[in-house]
């Protein structure tokens, strides 16, 4: 449940998100791919950086000249590469910041998600350090400013035996030190970054680090055009006998340095460390309890592995059978990793509401908070409330999309699930056969599932692209999918009206056809 401090930013985000859906569609909406966009920009930075490094001279006397050569002499290739290197780095920071804001606004950072958030904060620092070390290498007046500022900050820490800042005042800086910086920027920090990114996504399955092609092409072209129109240029060459006066700071990376003109290095550290710690402890302010973890009922598990394949958080593993049954494998749930989303319930072939032999519907894997049996009971009760209506519609939604309690039409019964991915397609068939004229699947906006993959699996199951499949004989014209967020009331109600009208027309047509058949 979102807290009061999420709501304003959440509503703003949803409106912006809606605008992006209009422009890009749900598949290419950049807000749904912020993490993978940051990865994409990182690849651009890496490839352009490799080319720039070929022409770069890692010495104090040669660094500036080599960068100037790239910028002005070989502008058509090295210059563009340099600009791409800079702008893609900046774009990565923009996407990372938007990624943080988005996850916060959607309350996707607490509870079982704490690990990804907690491990993501240091990544921001590593990226910032990469940028700072990169600016250092140009060895222009901005680099000089950054070098002295960084030394002031480092001198406060008990790392070096003597003040590092003095190296930049007495002009005794050696090529060896500069080579060390190049090593840190070119190899040290990138390796640390890749390792940190691996940890960051460790608790996710089917991690998307490749952006959709359309978005990749558009983003790359946008940066390429920017590199041609506004190529990256340097300041004057560094001169340790003068003080850089006016600086065109890269505020994405160098925003901390102006503080040193007003505060001591110690105070600046206190501020940055405080912000970092605050970000890191945010998943526990306030604490969010996870729903109970899914439980495996071995007597109904045939070890098919579909739940293992569908789990978005890598909480399910398959191991050798422990109960002596004839199947080879069985599913095991790690309660620490389980989000309680119920997507595994939707993927289990035993989640079949038509199984009349049992009083209580038991499935191979189930969520205690809202079980498959509860879904069947809610569906049956919902259909009973619709008796006597001209058109009977069952709307399945989720607890994170549009609040179904706001739909008060007499001919609609609503059932809110933890995630629409929890609903096995057989339940739709069940609802239609038990008297519903139509079933509308709502839930989160398409491609923006609170549990990452729930509505995607649901759509694929209904489209026959992923098991368990919807019964081939189920009438597709009586099934509608319409993802809706909190701000999409008008859109959803309009969609329901159109669906109702369609069902009514179909019903009348079939009744007429039946009458005509009776007369004949």
């Amino acid at each position, binding site marked *: 449940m979102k807290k009061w401090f999420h709501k304003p930013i959440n509503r703003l985000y949803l409106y912006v998100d809606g605008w*992006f859906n*209009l*422009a*890009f*569609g749900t598949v290419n909406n*950049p807000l749904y791919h912020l993490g993978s966009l940051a990865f994409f920009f990182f690849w651009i930075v890496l490839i352009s950086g490799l080319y720039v490094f070929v022409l770069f001279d890692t010495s104090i006397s040669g660094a500036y000249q080599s960068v100037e050569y790239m910028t002005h002499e070989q502008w058509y290739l090295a210059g563009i590469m340099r600009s791409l290197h*800079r*702008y893609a780095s*900046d*774009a990565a920071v*923009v996407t990372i910041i938007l990624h943080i804001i988005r996850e916060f606004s959607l309350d996707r950072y607490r509870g079982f998600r704490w690990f990804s958030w907690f491990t993501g904060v240091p990544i921001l620092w590593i990226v910032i350090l990469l940028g700072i070390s990169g600016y250092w290498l140009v060895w222009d007046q901005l680099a000089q*400013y950054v070098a002295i500022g960084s030394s*002031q900050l480092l*001198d406060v820490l008990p790392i070096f035996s*003597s*003040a590092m*800042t*003095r190296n930049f*005042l*007495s002009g005794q800086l050696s090529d060896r030190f500069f080579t060390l910086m190049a090593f840190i920027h070119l190899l040290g920090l990138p390796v640390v970054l890749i390792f940190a990114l691996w940890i960051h996504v460790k608790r996710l399955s089917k991690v998307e680090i490749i952006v959709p092609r359309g978005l990749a092409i*558009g*983003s790359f*072209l*946008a*940066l390429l*055009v*920017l590199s041609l129109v*506004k190529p*990256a240029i340097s300041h004057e060459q560094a001169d*340790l*006998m*003068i*003080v*850089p*006066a*006016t*600086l*065109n*700071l*890269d*505020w*994405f990376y160098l925003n901390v340095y*102006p503080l040193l*003109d007003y505060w001591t290095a110690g105070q600046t550290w206190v501020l940055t460390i405080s912000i970092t710690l605050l970000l890191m402890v945010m998943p526990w302010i306030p604490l969010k309890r996870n729903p109970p973890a899914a439980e495996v009922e071995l007597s109904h598990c045939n070890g098919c592995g579909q739940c293992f394949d569908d789990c978005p958080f890598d909480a399910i593993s398959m191991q050798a059978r422990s109960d002596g049954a004839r199947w080879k494998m069985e599913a095991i749930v790690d309660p620490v990793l389980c989000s309680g989303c119920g997507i595994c319930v939707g993927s289990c072939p035993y989640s079949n509401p038509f199984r009349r032999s049992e009083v209580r519907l038991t499935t191979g894997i189930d969520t205690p908070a809202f079980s498959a049996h509860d879904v069947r009971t809610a569906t049956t009760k919902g259909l009973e409330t619709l008796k006597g209506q001209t058109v009977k519609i069952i709307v399945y939604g989720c607890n994170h999309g549009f609040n179904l309690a706001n739909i008060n039409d007499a001919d609609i019964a609503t059932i809110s699930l933890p995630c629409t991915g929890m609903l096995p397609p057989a339940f739709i068939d069940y609802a239609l056969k038990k008297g519903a004229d139509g079933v509308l699947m709502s839930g989160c906006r398409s491609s923006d599932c609170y549990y990452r993959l729930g509505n995607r699996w649901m759509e694929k199951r209904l489209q026959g692209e992923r098991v368990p499949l919807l019964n081939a004989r189920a009438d597709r014209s009586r099934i509608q999918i319409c993802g809706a967020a909190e701000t999409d009331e008008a859109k959803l109600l309009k969609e329901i009206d159109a669906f109702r009208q369609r069902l009514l027309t179909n019903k009348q047509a079939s009744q007429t056809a039946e009458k005509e058949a009776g007369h004949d």
Partner: protein
Amino acid sequence: MTKLLRYPLQIFNYFIFVTIVWYFSIAPAYNHLEPGYAVIALAFGHAGQPVKECVRRTPEELAKLPPNMRNPIVCPRQRSPIEVEIIMDDQPMLQERFQPQGFSGDWGVDVYRQFKVPSGPHHLKMRLKDSVRVKDFNYVHEAKVVLKSAQLLVIDFQPNEGGFIIK
């Protein structure tokens, strides 16, 4: 919405994105130093004198010690704080006492201070005291300097070279 209508909207969004990226990668410009100003940086590393006189052991005292510990001169570990005073044009610019580093106060101090000052001619008087056993400043240096705009003037301290050095 048809694809044809989407493309202009996408281009608009990409334009906004790269404009933000470009603008904040260079702007707004930051004035680190106002025109007509220079910077004086005091930067040195120095260990103060021991807080007490070193004592020479008598032959009898040495004889009582194990052979590997017969150091004839014994000095206290703790070093004196370093007091620095810089006066520019008869106005105090810095008056600070730097305590020795280390748990036992036996390390030196690393000093870095910078001051933004108007460019032009200035009279600098620098004084340093590195021993609690002397009453007054034991290093004093005066100099007349003419600072250009944006110049960085470094005041170093090297006792082996006579004390304060202006670079």
